[in-house]
C-alpha cells in the first residue's frame, strides 16, 4: 500500500479538495466523488440561516464521508486565526486545522511571522496544524520547530491557476525535508501542474478553484485524480535524470556500415 500518513491518519487519496465556488451543491458532491478525495476543506462563516446558511451545507458535507479540514481563511491576525481554530475544533470535532494567516489581500500571501506564532500556540494546545505557507525554506523550518508535522507550501497565489511558479524552491523544500509530508496548496490550475508537483515527490495536492471553476467541474476533478495518481507513480518509479546532450536510445553497437 502507498498510503499518505497525516498526523497518524492513513489515507489512500493524495488529492485534497476545497468545497467553495461550485455551481451547485450537487456539483460539489459529484466532484468530490470524482476526485476520490478523502479530505475536504471547509470554512467558518457567519450563520445566515435558511437554505444558503451553514446547516444545509454541513449536512451535505457530512454525507460525503470525508475527513474535514477546517481552515482559518480570511484571518489576518494571530488572535483571529487562533480563535477561529478554537471554534473549528468544537464545530467539526477535529484537532485538524488548515492554518491561514493572510499578510496581503492582493496576493493572499501568508503572513509567515504570524503564521509561525499562531502555529506555535495551536500546537501547544494539541491542534494538528496544516500551515498554509510560502515555499520559504527558513519559514518551513520554523513551522516544524513550532510543532507542525505537515507543511503546505503554495505553488502560486490562491485562485490564480499559475501553477508551480518556483519549481526550484519546491524541489529544495522536498530535498531538505524528505520525511515531512508536503502538500502543495494553492495556485494549481491544471492537472499537468498537479502531476508535476507529485513527480517532484510532493505527498499530495490541495486545490479548489481549478476544479470548481472548470467548465465541467466533475470531469476536471476526475482529471486531477488521474494526474495526481500518475505523478505519484512517476515519483515512486524514479524519474530519469536530465542531461544536456542527446544520448541515443537505439544501440550504436551493430550499426550497419554502408560504405
Amino acid at each position: 500500500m502507498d498510503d499518505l500518513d497525516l498526523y497518524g491518519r492513513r489515507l489512500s487519496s493524495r488529492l485534497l479538495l476545497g468545497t467553495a465556488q461550485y455551481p451547485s451543491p450537487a456539483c460539489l458532491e459529484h466532484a468530490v466523488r470524482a476526485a476520490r478525495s478523502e479530505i475536504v476543506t471547509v470554512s467558518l462563516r457567519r450563520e445566515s440561516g435558511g437554505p444558503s446558511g451553514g446547516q444545509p451545507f454541513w449536512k451535505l458535507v457530512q454525507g460525503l464521508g470525508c475527513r474535514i479540514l477546517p481552515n482559518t481563511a480570511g484571518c489576518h491576525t494571530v488572535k483571529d486565526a487562533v480563535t477561529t481554530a478554537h471554534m473549528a475544533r468544537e464545530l467539526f470535532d477535529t484537532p485538524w486545522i488548515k492554518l491561514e494567516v493572510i499578510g496581503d489581500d492582493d496576493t493572499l500571501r501568508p503572513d509567515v511571522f504570524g503564521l509561525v506564532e499562531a502555529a506555535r500556540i495551536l500546537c501547544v494546545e494539541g491542534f494538528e496544524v496544516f500551515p498554509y505557507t510560502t515555499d520559504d525554506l527558513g519559514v518551513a523550518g520554523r513551522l516544524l520547530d513550532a510543532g507542525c508535522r505537515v507543511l503546505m507550501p503554495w505553488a502560486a497565489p490562491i485562485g490564480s491557476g499559475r501553477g508551480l511558479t518556483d519549481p526550484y524552491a519546491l524541489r529544495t523544500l522536498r530535498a531538505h525535508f524528505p520525511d515531512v509530508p508536503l502538500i502543495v496548496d494553492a495556485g494549481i490550475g491544471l492537472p499537468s501542474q498537479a502531476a508535476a508537483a507529485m513527480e517532484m515527490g510532493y505527498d499530495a495536492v490541495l486545490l479548489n478553484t481549478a476544479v470548481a471553476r472548470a467548465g465541467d467541474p466533475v470531469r476536471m476533478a476526475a482529471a486531477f485524480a488521474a494526474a495526481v495518481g500518475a505523478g505519484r507513480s512517476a515519483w515512486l518509479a524514479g524519474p530519469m535524470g536530465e542531461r544536456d546532450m542527446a544520448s541515443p536510445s537505439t544501440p550504436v553497437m551493430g550499426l550497419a556500415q554502408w560504405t
Partner: protein
Amino acid sequence: MTIFVNGEAQAHAANLAALLERMALSGAAVATAVNGCFVPRSQRERTRLDDGDHVEVLAPMQGG
C-alpha cells in the same frame, strides 16, 4: 440594551444560550464567540451578555 450579533444590532438576550434559542439555532451546528473570545458550547448558558457585546455565531461554510 443592544447587542451586536454577526455585526447586526439586536435586542439584548440574557445569555448566549438564550440568544441562540431566539435565533432558532439551539441545536444547530454553530460555534460562538463573544467580544473576540471563543465560548464553548458548554459555557453558553452561563455566558451573560452585556450592552454592546459583539457576538459571532459561525457555521460550516464552503472553503478552500
